[in-house]
């Protein structure tokens, strides 16, 4: 049923994007149709890193990609561990995941039935990367992720009404140009290929309070200090290790447009 809804929605999204394309953009239009039904086409664009370097703001070009419309689910991950026994919770090596790996699964091949279609969490960076590789893709880079999902309103604040995900506002919102696509963000943080590129420490937004012996380089001055959601994401990423398996951390994959 989900697929029946998703397919027309994707077609609408693709049509809207194609309509925007100029005559010079034929290549991009061809790529749009190269994405699979559960994917969203993200056209080439520019990523402005959240932190300034010594010479000021940089703009990094980002290549077009096909992006999973939603985070990888328990059911999809089950298919992966069925085919790749080394990534089952009883078999995974300690280097690749801490002991909480798939902590909410009853055993190697039994996620809870009621959450099958929800995002799989308690997965390490290694496991997420292996899943994407097995499906012909890879994890998105920070630049790619921020480009398609960093569309959160700068003034957003945590939801203190007692909901499950008070930081959902920081966990992704479609970039404006992808607003008409079926891209969804289910309220979990997501792994990125180079999560360990973030340099956040000490007092957020200034270099005061940072442990100067810990980091080299002037990397912690924000381009937009009012973007609270981005601060949260960069801080969260910088606190991760590759073997972490956390309750609120999932992932989605991207494929390069060939």
């Amino acid at each position, binding site marked *: 049923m989900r697929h029946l809804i998703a397919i027309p929605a994707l077609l609408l999204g693709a049509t809207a994007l194609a309509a925007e394309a100029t005559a010079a953009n034929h290549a991009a239009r061809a790529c749009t149709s190269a994405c699979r039904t559960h994917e969203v086409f993200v056209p080439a664009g520019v990523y402005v*890193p959240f*932190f300034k*370097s*010594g*010479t000021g703001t*940089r703009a990094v070009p980002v290549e077009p990609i096909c992006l999973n419309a939603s985070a990888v689910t328990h059911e999809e991950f089950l298919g992966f561990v069925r085919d790749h026994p080394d990534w089952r919770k009883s078999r995974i*090596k*300690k*280097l*690749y995941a801490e002991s909480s790996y798939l902590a909410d699964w009853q055993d190697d091949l039994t996620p809870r039935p009621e959450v099958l279609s929800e995002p799989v969490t308690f997965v390490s*960076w290694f496991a997420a990367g292996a899943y994407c590789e097995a499906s012909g893709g890879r994890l998105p880079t920070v630049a790619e992720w921020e480009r398609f999902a960093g569309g959160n309103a700068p003034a957003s604040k945590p939801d203190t009404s007692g909901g499950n995900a008070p930081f959902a506002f920081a966990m992704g919102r479609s970039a404006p140009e992808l607003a008409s696509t079926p891209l969804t963000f289910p309220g979990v943080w997501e792994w990125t*290929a*180079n*999560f*360990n*590129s*973030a*340099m956040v420490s000490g007092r957020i937004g200034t270099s005061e309070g940072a*442990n100067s*012996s*810990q*980091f*080299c*380089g*002037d*990397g912690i001055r924000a381009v937009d200090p009012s973007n609270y959601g981005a601060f949260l994401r960069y801080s969260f990423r*910088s606190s991760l*290790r*590759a*073997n972490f398996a956390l309750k609120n951390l999932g992932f989605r994959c991207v494929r390069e447009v060939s």
Partner: protein
Amino acid sequence: MNRTHKGIAFLAAVTLMTEVGSEPTERSVYQLDSSWVEDNGRALQLEALEGDMQLLALIYTTCTGACPVTVKSMQMFSRNMPDDIKGRIRFLLVTVDPEHDTLAILREYRREMKLDRRWKLVRGSPEDVRELAAVLGFNYEQIESGQFAHSNLVTVLDQRGEIVHQQNDFASDTKAVVEAIRHPQDEQPAP
């Protein structure tokens, strides 16, 4: 049991021990499926590092900030460390800028920094460097050509490639490193 049987049992035990010894342990960094090249052009698989402890740092040769300090203090450490640990430790520098740091540049760096044969300088693909860094908890990002923002971290690996000690500021205090090399089994695994 006659002598022949004893001999076979002994050989079997030795074979078993050798095999167990040559398989990286579950926490060993040497399980990473990555390929490296030393500055002398020789290919290096991480497993080949087994047997010696390693003092490991990620660097890049055009770094003007913390890297030269880290390498200099590692070098000072290599000269002044207590006699009882001298034979146990080797030094491993991995470049985070493989695009710029070619083997020729790494060889030049070796000459310039006067690094002897106990030191390996290695280079790998950007993906393999990213993975090794992720395992070590080393963060880095290229800010502009030739400059990186990066952690300042040295790691002690035991003979099997397990992380037994890490510290951010190597220049100021090496006591903990000496202790980690003396008694690797006492050290807590990395968080």
